[in-house]
């Protein structure tokens, strides 16, 4: 039987993240310090590779002939676009060579006709990219950041890692996050709505100070416009369910509601998904939460039409495949939904919750 997917919804866990560092990185945080995603934790002065400009061949001169053409000399500072060398001008074809990058003229190689620009050292800052407390520092290797947290895995994440204060903006998991719901001071807030359907809401939320939105679903057409938006979408976004008018799963909404006011992180992941990390108090008692399994009684959500977004419990898992109205023959489960109806759903269209 095709095993279903899993939506991880962990009410309490010790969330730990290692930030790997370069050997020469200078640490900017101390043990016990609270950090946010944008907090600088280390810096590194790195030199960029030098640039060799083939001035001789571009000007059509060889060997020492290049010396007659030089506008800049060894040791000169140059900015990108500065004139480096030129030939001709009054009569005949004029040729000019410009600096492709900023730096200092390091060498002139007459045998190859190249001007070498040594680029300035650049300071690279590593940020925390998460929330929590610094619990371990291993210089030149890593900084560990930890917090007790509730975790919600989301199907889609857009934008940068951001943290803010969790604020529930709607009354139910199916309610749209409309402009009216984005009111008052949203400074440093991560807003929670059932569905986010309009671009204007994102812009208004950003204007009011929000840094992120967590919602159940959004129309796919909006996603297209968000991906192509220039500049990028104004805040970070995490969808728990998917595209369309999918309500947020009740248990996710309930968990977020119970933790309203807590610091929260939206962390878009490299695979296009997102993780929501909600900080719990240090004294919170954490209980182990093993991954859920496909079994009678398991809590599930349906991730495809016709019951997309509905939640329920498995009451039966027939042993043989069944034919669906679509004509597809596949393994199914019978699920009792929250509205007390019973539906037959392909196991592939279920996600276990827990």
């Amino acid at each position, binding site marked *: *039987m*095709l*095993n*279903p*997917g899993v939506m991880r919804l962990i009410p309490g866990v010790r969330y730990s993240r290692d930030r790997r560092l370069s050997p020469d990185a200078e640490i900017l945080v101390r043990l016990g310090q609270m950090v946010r995603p944008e907090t600088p934790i280390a810096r590194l002065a790195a030199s960029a*590779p030098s640039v*060799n*400009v*083939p001035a001789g*061949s*571009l000007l059509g001169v060889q060997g020492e002939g290049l010396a007659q053409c030089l506008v800049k000399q060894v040791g000169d500072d140059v900015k990108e676009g500065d004139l480096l060398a030129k030939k001709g001008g009054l009569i005949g074809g004029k040729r000019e060579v410009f600096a492709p990058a900023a730096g200092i003229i390091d060498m002139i190689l007459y045998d190859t006709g*190249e001007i070498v620009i040594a680029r300035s050292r650049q300071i690279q800052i590593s940020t925390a990219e998460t929330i929590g407390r610094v619990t371990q520092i291993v210089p030149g290797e890593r900084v560990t950041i930890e917090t007790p947290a509730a975790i919600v895995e989301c*199907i*889609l994440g857009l934008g940068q890692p951001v943290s803010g204060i969790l604020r529930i903006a709607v009354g139910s998991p199916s309610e749209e996050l409309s402009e009216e719901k984005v009111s008052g001071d949203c400074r440093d807030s991560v807003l929670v709505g059932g569905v986010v359907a309009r671009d204007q809401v994102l812009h208004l939320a950003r204007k009011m100070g929000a840094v992120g939105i967590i919602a159940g679903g959004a*129309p*796919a*057409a909006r*996603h*297209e416009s968000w991906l192509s938006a220039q500049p990028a979408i104004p805040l970070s976004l995490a969808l728990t369910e*998917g*595209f*369309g008018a999918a309500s947020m799963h009740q248990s996710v909404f309930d968990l977020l509601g119970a933790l309203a006011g807590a610091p929260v992180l939206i962390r878009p992941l490299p*695979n*296009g998904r997102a993780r929501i990390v909600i900080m719990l108090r240090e004294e919170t008692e954490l209980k182990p939460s093993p991954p859920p399994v496909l079994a009678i009684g398991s809590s599930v959500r349906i*991730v*495809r*039409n*016709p019951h*997309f977004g509905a939640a329920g419990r498995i009451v039966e898992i027939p042993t043989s495949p069944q*034919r*669906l*109205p*679509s*004509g*597809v*023959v*596949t393994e199914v489960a019978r699920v009792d939904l929250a509205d007390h109806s019973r539906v037959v*759903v*392909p196991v*592939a*269209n279920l996600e276990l919750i827990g």
Partner: protein
Amino acid sequence: MTDAIDSILAIDHGSVSTKVALLDLVEGRYRFVTQVEALTQADDPRTSLLAAVEATQRKAGRRLLENDRLLTPECTNGSGVDAVVVTTSAGSPLRVLLAGIVPEASNAAIHRVVARVPAQVAGTLGIDDLRRHGGLKGASEFLNQLPIDVILFAGGSDGTSADSLVQVARAIAAVKTDGEEPALVYAGNKDALPDIADILSSRVTMHTVPNIEPGRGRYNLQPACEELYQAYIQRDGALGAVCRSMMPLERTTLLAEAKGTGISTRFIALWSQVDTLVADVGSHTSSVFSVISGEYSATVKPGIGIGVGAHAALQSIGIAKVLSWLSPAVSEDLVLDLVMNKSLRPNTVPSTADDVLIEMALTREILAMISPPARTFGMIVISGGVAARLQNQGLVALAVLDALQPRAPVRLAIDDLSLLGRLGALATIHPEAAGQVLVEDALCPLGTAISVAGRAKEGEVAVIAKVQYASGGHIEVHVPFGGIEVVPLARAGNARLVLQPARTLQIGNAPPGKSQTMEVTGGSVGVIIDARGRPLELPLSPDKRGEKLEEWLRALSPV
């Protein structure tokens, strides 16, 4: 090894699911026994393979594992298997740098090599590129920044000047990489090889194969393809390591799934003795393999599919084309939401009739996009995607006719167990077993389709078909222009068909109006007479189009 093989475990490690099929000798012939499918865990092939094999043990009631290793060879008590074949399509496409391109050549050959394997062009480095990058140093810096798995170095016919290839080789030699050196496949001018080897053999691992274009317009692509397939498998080191830890090396064959499907395609063409097309619309990759007049060809499109690649496919095709295969009541937003959700959760299956029609509409357009223009195949096989899961195989047949618009009588079949890739891999160690399973279990015949080309007045009789069943009895069917009729003919059935087209219509290469007589075989759908004309034109009016789509669907898949 062939003599010792009675039972085979055939594993496909796909991007969405891992399938394990058990093949065994049944009454002296190799047959498919059972199959299990488990979700592929990204970046954890060991868990995926173990879960799928454990599930196969349970389903087959046969012990296959001991301490997480496959039991081989088969024991006298029936435990274990004699051989294991593993195919993979889970890895990302191979990133290939095309090097050595010479401006005066067409360079079609080098691109055709890449198009035949799960690969994408990461960059090019020819003599023009050297100039563009400002010489050797600039070019080597450019190369250093490119994520490359393999360099495919080709160019120039044998006997032509080697100068430009040598310059490109020097640029490659100048690259200073921090990580692992990419492999280099040399498939160019053989007279340049000594100089190229002098420059490169100490810098990269060089694999030399015959020139892909030994003479102007003469191609020899397969050796270079084989090397790229080898690189594809070696690049996915994690799967290889898992296979080595779970299976004895001497009894295991690991192959790219696309390569296996290519081998099966050539077998089908040999067996059926007709030009053959195999189209595989997968989750992440779509491919077509063909044999036309004995010549094999393949196109593999990574990133375009009906699962993970559904959104990219829709973007490439355009939503208007997909909507044209759907009722006007289906909105653009509904299609977009479904396709995007499918990309997020590629393992889901359509539950409703609307959902399956949307997936099949996208499948049609992917098929049309990747298939060669030839319309005279004698055999078309569909593999992968929702098509393989559908019990309503009339819908699959209709999608094939819509997308490929064959002009000659054609046998249609479906690889409903998704076995073709694995059987191709099996053919490399045991062709007899592969052939028997392929013919008896893997190819599920849908029937024979006969299409009429040309135009006539809508509703007028386009073709009169007289069907004489080999088992006795006959029927006569009048098919109106613009319609499709299905004549029942079961899988094992044969019939003689006499077709009389209207005077403006033709069947195959026969002149318009000329009658045709042919022997046909049946299948799960039957004999399909497609009198919609070629090229197929959909009504412009949305309502009329919706009516015709429904009419054709009813003809092929009666409720």
